[in-house]
C-alpha cells in the first residue's frame, strides 16, 4: 500500500575510481519517472531550486539529440550543463553524455536505469567519468548547491 512517506535518502556511492552511482526508490511506475526526467516542463520543477531555478531546459529526446539546462542565481550568475542522448529505452533506460560548462573537458556518460516491481521503482544513475580526477572533481564540487553563498564568501575573502 502506498503511503506519503519517502523512501529515504538518495544513496551516493563510488563503485570504482571513475564512477559515481546515485540510487533512490520511488513509489511510482518507471514510465512516470522516465517522463518526469525527459519532459522540460517537469524537469523545471525539480532540477533547480527556488533560489536557483532552471531558466533553460531544452530536451531533444532522440538518439543524437541534445539537452541543455541552465540554472540562474539571484545575482545573475548562471551555470549550465549540456549533452547528447545516446540510447533511449522508455521506460527503463536512458544513456546520455553530460558536460558541466565551466569544465568542458570533463564530459561524463550518464546511464539511468529504472527497475519497477509492484509499483515501486528503483532508479540508478551511473555517472561514468574519463578519469579519477574528473570524477573526484565532480563529486567534490558541490557547485550545484549553495553556489551563491559560496561565491559571496569567496568574494569577501578575496577582498578582505
Amino acid at each position, binding site marked *: 500500500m502506498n503511503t506519503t512517506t*519517502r*523512501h529515504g535518502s538518495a544513496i*551516493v556511492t563510488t563503485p570504482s575510481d571513475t564512477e559515481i552511482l546515485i540510487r533512490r526508490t520511488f*513509489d511510482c511506475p518507471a514510465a512516470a519517472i522516465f517522463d518526469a526526467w525527459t519532459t522540460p516542463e517537469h524537469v523545471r520543477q525539480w532540477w533547480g531550486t527556488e533560489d536557483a531555478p532552471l531558466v533553460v531546459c531544452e530536451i531533444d529526446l532522440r538518439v543524437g539529440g541534445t539537452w541543455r539546462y541552465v540554472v540562474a542565481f539571484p545575482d545573475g550568475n548562471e551555470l549550465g550543463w549540456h549533452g547528447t542522448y545516446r540510447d533511449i529505452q522508455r521506460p527503463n533506460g536512458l544513456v546520455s553524455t553530460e558536460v558541466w560548462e*565551466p569544465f568542458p573537458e570533463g564530459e561524463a556518460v550518464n546511464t539511468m536505469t529504472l527497475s519497477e516491481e509492484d509499483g515501486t521503482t528503483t532508479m540508478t544513475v551511473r555517472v561514468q567519468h574519463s578519469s579519477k*580526477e574528473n570524477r573526484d572533481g565532480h563529486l567534490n564540487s558541490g557547485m550545484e548547491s549553495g553556489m551563491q553563498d559560496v*561565491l559571496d564568501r569567496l568574494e569577501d*575573502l578575496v577582498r578582505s
Partner: protein
Amino acid sequence: MPRAATTSDAFNAVAEPRRREILDLLASGELSVGDLVAQLGLTQPQVSKHLQVLRQVDLVRSRTVGRQRMYRVNGPALKPVHDWVTGFERTWNERLDRLDDLLTTLHNTDPQPEQE
C-alpha cells in the same frame, strides 16, 4: 557565461579538483607540504604550485614550524569548503526529493489496484 570579475579567480582556484582535495585535507587540520604530497600522490612541485594558487586567493595560509612549512585553511573559508565536499550528495538528495514531490502530485497517492 556571466561571472563577476572579482570572484572568478577564487572560483577558478577551487574549480580545479586537486585544489579541492587539498582544501578537503586541510579542513581536518594543519599539514606540511610533505604530508600533502604523501596523501595526494602528486610531486612536491605540483603540490607547491596548487598551494601557491590557493594562497593567492587567501584560501590557505602558512607558517613555518622548525624547518617545515605548514599549511592551513583560512578560517572563514572552512565552512564553504566543507559544504562543497558534502554538496554533491545533498544536492541530489534534495533534487530527488523534489522529483518525488512532483511525481506524487502528478500521480497522486491513490493505491493502484492489485495486479492479477
